């Protein structure tokens, strides 16, 4: 059987103007001064994806995984190399991309379907299924500008998966919506797999790769580090992550983040226990610091912190809005957000800290790192569970029934 996707020697070179000059006048004025930096967002990538296979593209921020996905989707053209995709493809690079706020849900479903290349007749046939999946029966004839961000995401996902493409491209979108919807998405992705459809999943969550993928490609600074077995991929990915964070000079990291573009980026994160290590005694405090870089002034944003156990249970998922009652304001240049947890009631284990920078409506994410840093809780006691409970144990003995 012919492969669903063939990627041969794909390189994507970006030219970054140090300051994007958008008008002719500015371009003429700064023609010489404007230094142009070239870098390879992707360097000579080869990949073959078999039909029915689920492949994960794993890498940290700026590794080129999203660029590769965009090349597969066709929204950007590689500088050299070739990509061939067989079959009908639906790209979920962003849920509800192409929804127009002034149109109703119904109109947007049809529009989105035709944007993804499916006929009106095809969409009509599966329209009810889409609406049912999104659980929006009552709201489908309302303009989507009145939708909540969750409803918006649900409809976007419902359109893309119910169109039943042969090849589905997914970019981190499984991380949106409430828990219920996330589970539903995952179930749908699983059904997709059993139906023999091809999925390309971009993620920086090793767990998702292990759970969902048959194979994985690990990218680091545009280079392919590993293609194949998922367990090995996760090991390579972790290693690359440590290698890059180990040598991180904060100034360099921030410059790199700024160069990667985008208004607001996560430049780094650390979790520090009160004694300065990354191992916390139960009941001790821990400080999680998120460092960000804003290329331009961002008037307001939200930072979200998600702490999960190694087996994926969320111990905490809260935004700065939830915690402070207002949003972060006037983010400009380099800055940091510190989350200080006074007494950490977790039991022994290693914990992952995910950080997300999003806009106040929570429809748009500036940047996210689902494994921004980690910390361990270690007491040495053999108690199993999640949280430290204040347990009093009383024992009485010596009573006998007469």
């Amino acid at each position, binding site marked *: 059987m*012919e492969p*669903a996707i063939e990627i041969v020697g794909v390189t994507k070179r*970006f030219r970054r103007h140090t300051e994007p000059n*958008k*008008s*002719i*006048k500015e*371009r003429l004025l700064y023609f010489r001064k404007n230094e142009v930096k070239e870098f390879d967002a992707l360097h000579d990538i080869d990949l073959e994806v078999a*039909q*029915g296979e689920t492949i994960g593209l794993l890498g940290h921020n700026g590794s080129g995984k999203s660029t590769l996905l*965009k*090349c*597969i*989707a*066709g*929204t*950007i*053209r*590689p*500088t*050299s*190399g*070739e*990509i*061939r*995709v*067989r*079959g*009908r*493809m639906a*790209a979920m*690079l*962003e849920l509800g*991309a*192409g929804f*127009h706020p*002034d*149109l109703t849900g119904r*109109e947007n479903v*049809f*529009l989105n379907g*035709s*944007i*993804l*290349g499916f*006929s*009106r007749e095809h969409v009509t046939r599966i329209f009810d299924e889409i609406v049912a999946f999104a659980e929006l029966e009552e709201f489908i004839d309302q*303009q989507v500008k009145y939708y909540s961000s969750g409803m918006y995401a649900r409809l976007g996902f419902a359109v893309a998966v119910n169109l*039943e493409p*042969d090849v589905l491209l997914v970019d981190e979108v499984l991380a949106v919506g409430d828990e219920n919807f996330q589970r539903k998405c995952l179930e749908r992705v699983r059904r997709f*797999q*059993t*139906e*023999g*459809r091809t999925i390309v999943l971009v993620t920086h969550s090793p767990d998702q790769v292990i759970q969902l993928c048959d194979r994985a490609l690990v990218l680091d600074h545009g280079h392919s580090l590993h293609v194949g077995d998922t367990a090995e991929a996760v090991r390579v990915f972790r290693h690359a992550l440590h290698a890059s964070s180990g040598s991180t000079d904060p100034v360099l990291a921030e410059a790199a983040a700024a160069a990667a573009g985008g208004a607001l980026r996560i430049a780094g994160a650390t979790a520090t226990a009160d004694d300065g290590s990354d191992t916390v005694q139960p009941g001790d405090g821990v400080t999680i610091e998120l460092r960000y870089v804003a290329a331009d002034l961002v008037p307001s944003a939200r930072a979200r912190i998600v702490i999960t156990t190694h087996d994926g249970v969320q111990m905490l998922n809260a935004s700065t809005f939830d915690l402070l009652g207002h949003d972060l304001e006037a983010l400009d240049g380099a800055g940091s957000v510190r989350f200080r947890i006074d007494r950490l009631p977790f039991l022994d284990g290693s914990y992952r800290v995910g950080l997300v920078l999003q806009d106040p409506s929570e429809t748009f994410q500036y940047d996210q790192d689902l494994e921004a840093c980690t910390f361990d809780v270690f007491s040495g006691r053999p108690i199993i569970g999640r949280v430290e409970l204040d347990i009093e144990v009383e024992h009485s003995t010596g009573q006998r029934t007469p």
Partner: protein
Amino acid sequence: MTAATPERHEPSARRSHYEVRENRTVAPGFLQRGRRIWEYRELLGSLTRRELKIKYKDSILGFLWTLLNPLLYLVVFSIVFAVLLRTDVPLYGVFLLSGLLAWTMFSTGVTGATISITGNGPLVQKVWFPREILPLSAIGAALINFFFQFVVLVIALVVFQRAPAWEYLPLLIPALAVTVLWSAALGIVLSAVNVHYRDVQHFLELVFLAWFWLTPIVYQFDLVGDLLAERGITDRLAMLNPMIPVVTTFQRVIYNPTHEIGTQAAANFDFLLGRSGMWYLENLAISGAMAAVVLVIGVKIFGKLEADLGEEL
């Protein structure tokens, strides 16, 4: 993959429709682009509908606004030119609209097309489809609007009991085709250039303002024709403005100055009346040929700029 799978999906490779999509270094050629657009014609229709729907969303009169615009022109210009300026063009409002509607289609089409890619940033960054669809849908919307506004003109003809020039009527088809061709030729290339240089959309406003007054819409082509004739220059030279063949054709057919023959006003239309259908057709052919050349070059430039559209936005 479990054996218990109830119904295994058949990849479209084994259906009648087998699509291989390629993304490679080389931009696709002109004909391949044409084929792709044809494959995505349904999207072109959807986006055109979207343009029209959004324009008057949440307004009470909705689509009626499209009709009120030419109606207002008809009334206001009739009053100003016929009553105040005492023009010797009878039924001045009808004369104006005959040329104006085609011009409006052209200028709103090109303007809409120019901002179509920058205005659909998220879409262009996230989903692939032939990018030309965006400028073409803006032009499509302008064309549909034209037809609606044309209804107003037809009603005006009925009200004033003025028949169009039936024998010249078929000329409207090539005239419309040339207008659409020019809109596409300019709109496609400008939509991509505007992503890199936002000056284009502002510059365009000025260009269209000058171009409008350089086209005989408010005044008669005779004024231009006489000017050239005095200097012994052929009136073909005026056709360097590619909208003149379109506008004069519309005026000849719709306004139909035949009605003025024998009156004093006929002197205003010596040129339009004195030319055969062939003259109009040849002018349109010249204009169309120029448009075709611009279109081919424009699409070539578009192909080059298209590679990084998603990044430059």
